[in-house]
């Protein structure tokens, strides 16, 4: 496979990438159009507000309930799956998870892997790990296939190639696959179908993600529209599912509201074309399906988030992408600007426990706190509240023991400025003195006050304070009152 261009390293800061994205008219149009349409579809899929709010509340309770007994449910899931013939593996880090997957492939002397869409495998950078070991891992979701072909990363967790338009895809197929250029989306999909079908047939191992793991029955549930998920989990002789430890739910019935919330929030569909529920490998008398099924349960920082009662709520996430579809910042800067696997509002609150907040200190601030993400979240994660929490962690001094690896934005200078501000505003004498000085020596205010003056003129204090003006106003009114 072609070497992946580390897009995220082209410009090494969120601000730098954001600036580039904002200047890219094509990119902005592609996102604007797509996000508008996704928002409309979601709204249409929930015509009854009462039903929607009831379901969101239920979704939240189911996930919170599952988290409140997470270790027991994970053990129950393992027991059931093992009874069903599925081999369960545990990994604390992405490195461990990759080694497990690689070990399975090696034990089968496999060299070709076909993969259904899986964000956890993106977290693991599984494709690169396997490529370094001479195993080709091909993405089979149309969008993922397109971004992989172009050496890119997904820019949206549900619509990986949403940043590209048909002409860009057509040119890519022409350059990489040697086919005629075409503006016909159907033809582009036909090309993808033909190319990938051979891969499904020949693959030694199929890899997939999991949307919900059901402890009661030992079942892995996957939703999808294309059929590539079914192909990857049915056609190759071995199926390896990778998922985060937070995906487990207790009962089969729990997936009724959760699947409904997921597909309606993500795509505005009452249900996806396929809901694929896998409970074991091929039975001795069955004619197809993989002979081996493995599940890799990945932690990768999730147990750290779990340890913090407030941040634990991030583990409610069912990866629908509605928060990014409704985010005014995401819509403008696009998914690649975030430079991490999970972009948008949800990315901003889960990336810290995966890579440490000090790696992504700009993320919590890349939000207007408009609240749209929290309002649409199908499992009611209070995203704005968690962003504020991370902003606080970001500026804590080492002595204040920042959590989730915060403290990266702590600045003595800024802290000192706030101390002075507090002093001025809590001591009337000092405040009066400051006011007196500010109104008289306003001209001395610096002309350059950071980012503000990039697009605005610097503020200059007025010659007279509001207090002063109010006093005048009131006394003149009193005079008038006395005369009449």
């Amino acid at each position, binding site marked *: 496979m072609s070497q992946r261009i580390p897009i995220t390293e082209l410009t090494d800061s969120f601000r730098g990438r954001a600036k580039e994205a904002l200047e890219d008219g094509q990119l902005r149009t592609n996102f604007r159009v797509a996000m508008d349409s996704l928002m409309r579809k979601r709204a249409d899929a929930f015509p009854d507000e009462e039903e929607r709010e009831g379901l969101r509340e*239920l979704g939240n309770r189911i996930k919170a309930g599952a988290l409140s007994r997470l270790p027991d449910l994970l053990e129950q899931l393992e027991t059931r799956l093992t009874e069903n013939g599925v081999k369960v593996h545990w990994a604390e880090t992405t490195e461990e998870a990759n080694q497990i997957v690689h070990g399975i492939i090696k034990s089968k002397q496999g060299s070709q892997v076909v993969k259904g869409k899986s964000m956890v495998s993106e977290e693991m950078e599984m494709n690169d790990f396997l490529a370094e070991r001479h195993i080709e891992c091909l993405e089979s979701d149309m969008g993922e296939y397109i971004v992989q072909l172009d050496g890119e990363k997904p820019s949206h967790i549900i619509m990986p190639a949403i940043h590209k338009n048909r002409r860009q895809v057509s040119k890519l197929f022409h350059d990489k696959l040697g086919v005629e250029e075409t503006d016909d*989306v159907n033809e582009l999909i036909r090309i993808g179908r033909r190319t990938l*079908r051979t891969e499904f047939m020949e693959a030694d191992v199929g890899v997939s993600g999991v949307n919900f793991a059901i402890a009661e029955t030992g079942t892995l549930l996957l939703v999808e529209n294309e059929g590539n998920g079914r*192909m990857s989990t049915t056609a190759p002789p071995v199926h390896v599912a990778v998922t985060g430890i937070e995906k487990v739910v207790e009962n*089969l019935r729990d997936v009724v509201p959760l699947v409904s919330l997921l597909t309606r929030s993500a795509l505005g569909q*009452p*249900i996806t074309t396929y809901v694929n529920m896998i409970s074991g490998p091929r039975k001795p008398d*069955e004619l197809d399906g993989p002979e081996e099924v493995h599940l890799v349960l990945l932690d990768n920082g999730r*147990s750290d988030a779990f340890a913090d009662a407030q941040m634990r709520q991030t583990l409610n996430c069912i990866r629908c992408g509605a928060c990014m579809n409704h985010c005014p910042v995401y819509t403008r800067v696009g998914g690649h600007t975030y430079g991490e696997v999970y972009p948008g509002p949800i990315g901003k609150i889960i990336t810290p426990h995966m890579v440490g907040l000090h790696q992504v200190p700009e993320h919590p601030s890349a939000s207007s706190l408009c609240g749209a993400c929290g309002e649409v979240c199908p499992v009611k994660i209070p995203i704005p509240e968690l962003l504020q929490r991370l902003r606080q962690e970001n500026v804590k001094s080492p002595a204040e023991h920042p959590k989730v690896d915060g403290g990266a934005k702590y600045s003595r200078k800024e802290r000192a400025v706030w101390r002075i501000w507090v002093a001025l505003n809590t001591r009337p004498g000092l405040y009066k003195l400051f006011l007196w000085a500010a109104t008289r020596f306003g001209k001395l205010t610096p002309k350059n006050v950071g980012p503000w003056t990039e697009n605005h003129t610097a503020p200059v204090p007025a010659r007279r304070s509001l207090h002063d003006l109010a006093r005048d106003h009131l006394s003149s009114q009193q005079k008038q009152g006395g005369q009449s």
Partner: protein
Amino acid sequence: MNARNNILNKLRTSLAGTSPRPDEFDEELVTRPWQYDPQNRIERLRSLMEAVHTEIHPLASEQWPAKVQELLESRNLGNVLYAPGTEHGRMLAEHWQNAGAKQELIAYDRPVEEWKEELFWEVDASVTGTLGGIAATGSLVLWPDRHEPRLMSLLPPVHIALLKASDIEDNLYAMMKAQSWSAGLPTNLLLISGPSKTADIEQVLAYGAHGPKELIVLILEDQ
């Protein structure tokens, strides 16, 4: 096993002193908005499935094999994959013989490994049964087994599914209850709600992404 113990221990430490949340599942919420009387039930399923390009034909039960033949003829398809070990498979074979249908009947009667290439590229259509339908979401329930394998509803470009009208339930929850799914699930249980599709390029909907390009549902009215 270290990773396992470390993860579980860490989670348990974090939960120390807390108690599990009570079961707050609300059956009403997932059933009440999704209830239909018998005629509307079929109509609901039909309109949702048609909205995603599924072709639907209500029929009297005994007419379906002839309908399958007609559908293949009108599309100029040369063969059809069927499940010889099922009752509907036997009905189809019987009809084929009696009617002298010219399309080749291909039996899925050996492990996929023995004829993968043919299955992947040369089959034109398939006929499968279903375990029922779900009106709320416009879905078919398939429970593949040794007689009717998983790939039958995935590989052929045209998938013809038989659905008994009386097997349509209001919603997924009712279906799970009616068929006691939680008591035991097959290797692979499927809900299928249309032909395979993608909107990954510019959100333009294209059918026939990796699975069937066409899904045809024959709704069989009871006698």
